[in-house]
């Protein structure tokens, strides 16, 4: 017990005031002769006593009011022991790891069995809660005292093939402890994987009133081989040139030779041996991937026969496709731009385009739907009908690359996007011989491998008004160089200069090929993406604001993942289970996505005992909890103020009665 502001206790001296006043009143009696006191006698005495008693009550109320007021301002507090305050009551949390690694040795079932055993020993009437955690934490129940509900929740825990995260678990436990006034005891059922620890130990910190009791399902790391990763082309254009590279990893394993097989649509295409060193990695390369047209389900598998068989195979999907068509619209006088673009795309191994070059005047009867991309190379005099058709095509998902050279600058308007061109800027007129790129968004797919376009000299640049377009690169005079504008479901990429080696020397630089290749791939919708995703990944189904057209997702078991409402509006979907997902996007594209469990789960090495002890000690309910426990002060000021209010009202009422009596007399 103490006071937060003890100097306010000096206010207790004010108690003397009502006492002084009451004493004065009490002694202020006038002696008066009266004929006889016969009729006063006993009743008189009692009357005076009653009166004094009432006045004493009034005095007591006033003294109490002042004392409480001084006390409230002094703000007393008591050191409250959380455990004592709750007189032994506590919340028992059962947290069960359901990550991918819990598939090994039937660990999840053992965890559930032990959890049920713990719940059966729980004292009756106490609160309990069941959590299941992997990458995220799922509250299987709220804090309840019903044993049947808790048991049912434990039995309902299933593996979600995600990677376990102790940091996420600790975060949720801290939130629970914050909302619960009771001490919390956490029973953690996990295989205690070391890879589940966060990089920063502070993320594991538990709440002050929390006790962590680990129930390890594995005491030492088990030997485990896994196909850690596979690098394969997502789009297969030329089977002869394709290459599949797999990495086989051994965790806590001796050196061994493993047989690695490549399977396409369930058929083993090739098998190779791999010498995996002790607790090391080996690479296996398969040259040539003969897959039929369309999507193929591929898999790299090893013969490991270890504890965790689920990571012995790595799935990936491949799409065998024909080269895409690119419509190159350019002025006949600018043949050099055509030359540079064709050369760049032909030299690329990832992009495969059939380029169809036409002058602006011959575009009237073209069917745009057969093209993946339209490139306008300073094509200033587009027929209006073609431009209108081009706009409509872009709105439905098509893409256009515009190289705004002097021709477009002269017309003061960027085709399709409609953006204004302020002027055509010549570097030499402003004192400098050329301009260079000052800033570039290298995270954008078009610039990711273009090396910031360093060293490229720009002599002529169209001053494009950005409007609502996103500026991806600027020159050193802040002129926008590369802009991206969305139009409906499609994209327009605007380069404020030509591709002819006159306005700039970009075609002569090494950055030109990856820039053209990446930009074309990005615009044509074939941007490079891994051939497989990790379980728990989020896949975008439609761009923002693209609701209305239904998307469809079938999980590895062939069941629809999305409800009808979700299919019409969901931006994306979380891919939780390993296997092949069939995706039909809102824009109409069909896709086969391979999902694999996070391979960090394959490392079954357990958390060292010292680390575990440190984690336990972050909660005050740990081993040294008694020594480090700090009682929380509980301030009583506001409660006393409530009592003050009550006493003040009572004193007021008594005072009114007293005054009424005085006035009547």
């Amino acid at each position, binding site marked *: 017990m103490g006071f937060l502001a003890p100097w306010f206790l000096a206010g207790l001296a004010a108690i003397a005031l009502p006492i002084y006043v009451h004493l004065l009143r009490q002694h*202020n*009696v*006038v*002696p*008066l*002769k*009266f*004929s*006889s*006191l*016969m*009729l*006063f006698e006993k*009743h*008189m*005495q009692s*009357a*005076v006593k009653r*009166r004094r008693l009432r006045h004493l009550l009034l005095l007591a109320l006033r003294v109490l009011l002042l004392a409480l007021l001084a006390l409230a301002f002094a703000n007393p507090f008591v050191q409250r022991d959380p455990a004592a305050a709750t007189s032994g009551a506590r919340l028992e949390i059962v947290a069960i790891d359901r990550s991918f690694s819990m598939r090994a040795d039937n660990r999840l079932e053992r965890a559930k069995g032990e959890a049920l055993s713990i719940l059966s020993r729980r004292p009756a009437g106490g609160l309990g809660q069941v959590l299941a955690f992997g990458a995220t934490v799922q509250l299987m129940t709220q804090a309840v005292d019903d044993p049947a509900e808790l048991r049912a929740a434990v039995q309902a825990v299933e593996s979600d093939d995600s990677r376990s995260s102790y940091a996420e678990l600790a975060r949720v436990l801290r939130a629970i402890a914050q909302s619960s006034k009771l001490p919390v005891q956490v029973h953690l059922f996990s295989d205690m994987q070391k890879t589940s620890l966060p990089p920063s130990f502070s993320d594991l910190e538990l709440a002050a009133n929390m006790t962590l009791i680990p129930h390890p399902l594995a005491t030492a790391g088990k030997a485990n081989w896994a196909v850690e990763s596979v690098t394969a082309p997502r789009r297969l254009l030329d089977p002869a040139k394709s290459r599949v590279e797999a990495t086989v990893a051994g965790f806590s394993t001796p050196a061994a030779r493993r047989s690695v097989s490549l399977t396409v649509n369930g058929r083993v295409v090739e098998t190779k041996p791999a010498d995996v060193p002790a607790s090391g990695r080996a690479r296996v390369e398969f040259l040539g991937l003969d897959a039929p047209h369309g999507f193929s389900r591929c898999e790299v598998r090893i013969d490991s026969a270890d504890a965790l068989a689920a990571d012995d195979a790595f799935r990936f999907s491949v799409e065998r496709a024909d080269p895409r068509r690119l419509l190159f619209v350019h002025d006949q006088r600018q043949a050099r731009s055509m030359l540079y673009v064709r050369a760049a795309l032909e030299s690329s191994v990832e992009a495969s385009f059939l380029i169809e070059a036409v002058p602006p005047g011959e575009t009237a009867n073209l069917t745009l739907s057969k093209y993946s991309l339209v490139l306008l190379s300073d094509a200033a005099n587009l027929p209006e009908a073609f431009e209108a058709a081009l706009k409509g095509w872009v709105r439905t998902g098509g893409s256009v690359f515009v190289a705004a050279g002097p021709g477009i600058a002269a017309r003061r308007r960027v085709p399709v996007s409609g953006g204004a061109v302020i002027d055509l800027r010549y570097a030499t007129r402003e004192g400098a011989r050329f301009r260079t790129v000052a800033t570039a968004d290298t995270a954008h797919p078009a610039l990711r491998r273009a090396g910031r376009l360093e060293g490229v000299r720009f002599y002529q640049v169209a001053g494009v008004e950005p409007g609502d377009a996103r500026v991806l690169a600027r020159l050193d005079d802040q002129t926008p160089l590369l802009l991206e504008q969305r139009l409906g479901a499609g994209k327009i990429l605007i380069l404020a200069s030509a591709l002819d080696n006159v306005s700039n020397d970009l075609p002569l630089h090494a950055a030109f090929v990856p820039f053209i290749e990446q930009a074309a791939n990005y615009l044509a919708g074939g941007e490079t993406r891994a051939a497989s995703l990790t379980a728990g990944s989020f896949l975008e189904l439609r761009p923002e604001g693209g609701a209305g057209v239904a998307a469809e997702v079938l999980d590895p078991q062939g069941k629809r993942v999305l409800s009808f409402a979700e299919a019409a509006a969901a931006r994306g979907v979380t891919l939780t289970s390993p296997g092949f997902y069939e995706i039909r996007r809102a824009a109409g594209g069909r896709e086969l996505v391979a999902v694999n469990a996070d391979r960090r789960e394959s490392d079954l090495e357990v958390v060292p005992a010292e680390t575990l002890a440190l984690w336990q000690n972050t909660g005050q309910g740990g081993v040294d909890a008694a020594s480090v426990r700090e009682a929380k002060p509980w301030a009583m000021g506001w409660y006393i103020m409530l009592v003050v209010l009550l006493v003040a009202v009572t004193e007021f009422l008594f005072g009114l009665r007293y005054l009424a*009596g*005085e006035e*009547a*007399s």
Partner: protein
Amino acid sequence: MLQRFLNPAVLAGISGLELVARTVVEGFVAGLHRSPDFGFSQEFAEYRAYSEGDDLRYVDWNVFARTERAYIKRYRGETNTLVTALLDTSGSMGYSSHGVSKLDYARYLCASIFYLAINRQRDGAGVIVFDDEIRHFVAPSTRQGQLMRLLHALEKCEPRARTDFAKPFFHFQQFLHRRGIVMVVSDFYEAPEKIVRSVEPLRHKGSEVVLFHVLDPREIAPKLDEPVLLVDMETADSLEVSPDYARTGYRERIDAHIAAMREQSKAAGLDYFLLDTSRPLDEALREYLSLRAGRM
């Protein structure tokens, strides 16, 4: 009106009791037009049933012979009846809240009645002054100079000592040989049953007994603005009294005391008349005599 209803405070300014008595009596008699027969007499009035202690000499034997029931013949006072005033001069009678003490008022009352009896009715009058003892005694008489003797006795009265009805009233019976009218003038701070028990034997001698209960208005309705320490004028005891209690509890008790006095006096055949010292004396006398005439 003012002439008829004289303020006791005005009377207090008149030095001589004789003058006071004359002023009062002449004043109210002058205002009487329709009741010329006010006064004291012992003419036959009525029969009443015999009760234990009645003098057998007054039993009407003729009626007894006819009805076999004993009746007492009652008489109105004859012209030469005797009026005896028993004046309480205990300490409590000295209480005053407005200039006229209860004793003064009682003296004016006695003087007025003596004046009325002697000068108007030619009756004999006497006075016994008492507190806890008999302090003065003027035997009832119609002799020359009796009024002056009585007034002199009244003027010598001083409030002192305590009231004790038992002892003086025992002696009164020795002084009062003849039946007549006995006026007891007191504030009666005693238990009503005890007072009545003390006074009742006077009634048994055939005298008519009248109790004049003299009280100050502040005794009937005390007004206190703050707690006071009341000091008993007879015993010097003190008590702290709150305005609250004086307003409620005491009022109930004094009203009950007066009511008990009235009821028990009536039950014992005694006349009872409450006199508030703030009332004009002639008005009070007139009222009393009207009531008395009404009963006769």
